[in-house]
């Protein structure tokens, strides 16, 4: 029963990863509030626990005890399904991202049975090292749109619907530029396997080869994660709270979780593709990965503290007329240089 053990090991690994990720999401919210507070010359949350460190816990408990509104007019099943889709689509891509070099020995002995973990690379710091890892990640994370648009639709509220439609348009537009920005990396790395991409950055991070790609990716990622200056879905003066206007309690919590998980995931992808993944000197590989990822999360918060929101037509103009051509030009440039160089 070798495969059963492997399945169990994989499940345990995914479970651990998800738990760690959820904790990271919780603390990303605290980090956002703290950093925003400092940048606005405030203190941020500081009531719960030392330095406000228990704030995410308090928020979670509060959300759990709120009344779970069930709208009489809503499509009940869709209404309940939407936050779950969002959360899953935001968390799942993490399973294909290599977060550390090596997390377990090659073989483990369990009840007198020896399991060869190296055989399916289960000892590596990645749950599923798929051959088309980048495609998997892009595909799953774009499923998050369904959660948003279904939530907006099922709420039977004009603000929610408009918010949902808006975010769909935005995400589809910017997904194109996001994918195009990644293609440059794939061309340089010559592989879609995430671990191979990390391996290819052993000497030089791809941000050196792909500076424009990185900038385009970051901008598209801001729009993809619906962060300021592209957070049009929740611009209060036009749409109240956008697609989650009618959600409460843990359903709202799931949307919120999906939002922050999306930020972390997108930062982790950028870390893997452009910043050398878990590679770095001296410190353990996992620390490097977390450090780089949270540096990017900090960047997202920093941008939020700095820039005002753009208008919707500006957003569309920017995405289609500037970002996408720039991404295409980047691919062309990369291709030409690669051909000339080799």
């Amino acid at each position, binding site marked *: 029963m070798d495969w059963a053990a492997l399945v169990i090991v994989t499940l345990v690994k995914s479970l651990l990863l998800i738990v760690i990720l959820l904790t990271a999401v919780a603390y990303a919210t605290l980090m956002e509030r703290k950093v925003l507070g400092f940048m606005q010359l405030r203190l941020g949350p500081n009531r719960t626990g030392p330095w406000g460190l228990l704030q995410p816990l308090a928020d979670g408990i509060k959300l759990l005890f709120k009344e779970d509104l069930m709208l009489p007019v809503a499509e009940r099943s869709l209404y309940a399904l939407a936050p779950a889709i969002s959360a899953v689509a935001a968390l799942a891509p993490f399973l294909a991202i290599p977060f550390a070099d090596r997390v377990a020995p090659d073989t483990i002995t369990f009840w007198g049975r020896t399991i060869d973990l190296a055989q399916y690379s289960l000892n590596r710091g990645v749950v599923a090292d798929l051959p088309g890892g980048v495609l998997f990640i892009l595909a799953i994370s774009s499923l998050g749109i369904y959660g948003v648009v279904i939530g907006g639709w099922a709420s039977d509220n004009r603000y929610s619907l408009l918010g949902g439609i808006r975010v769909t348009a935005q995400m589809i537009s910017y997904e194109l530029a996001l994918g195009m920005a990644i293609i440059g990396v794939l061309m340089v790395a010559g592989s879609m396997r995430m671990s191979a991409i990390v391996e290819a950055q052993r000497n030089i991070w791809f941000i050196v080869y792909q500076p424009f790609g990185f900038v385009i990716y970051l901008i598209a990622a801001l729009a993809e994660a619906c962060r300021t200056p592209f957070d049009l879905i929740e611009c209060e003066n036009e749409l109240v709270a956008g697609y989650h206007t009618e959600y409460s309690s843990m359903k709202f919590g799931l949307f919120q979780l999906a939002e922050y998980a999306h930020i972390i995931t997108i930062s982790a992808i950028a870390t893997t593709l452009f910043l050398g993944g878990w590679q770095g000197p001296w410190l353990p590989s996992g620390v490097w990965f977390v450090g780089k990822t949270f540096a990017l999360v900090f960047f997202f918060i920093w941008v939020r503290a*700095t820039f005002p929101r753009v208008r919707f037509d500006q957003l569309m103009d920017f995405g289609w007329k500037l970002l996408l051509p720039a991404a295409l030009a980047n691919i062309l440039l990369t291709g030409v240089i690669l051909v000339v160089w080799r």
Partner: protein
Amino acid sequence: MIIPFLKGLGKTLEQCFRKPITIRYPEEKREVSERFRGHPRLLTDPQGRPLCVACCLCATVCPSFAITIEAATDGMHQKYPRRFVVDLARCIYCGFCEEACPKAAIKLNRRYELAQYDRNLLIYDKEQLLKSD
């Protein structure tokens, strides 16, 4: 086009390292100015007798009718307030009473934490006004 964006980012990062202008309120209290107008209090002479002579000028000038005075006399011709009540729920902390008082017997202090659960607790009589500094 890029430079202003970077400038903005630099500005916010710079703010990040400045001292916050907010304070941890119940633990740290904001130092109020010397001329701060808190709630009114009654002053006494060195013997501990109220300076007030119950002339009712403060009650007259008070725009929100927060002061009620009942005058009384003792012995020769010394008038004094038998009752001196300030309803802090009505008081607007304008300081007119302080300006009107010929004896400088009433003065606004620097206390600003006056919230109460019961409205009646905000009606201060003479003893409370004398005690509160």
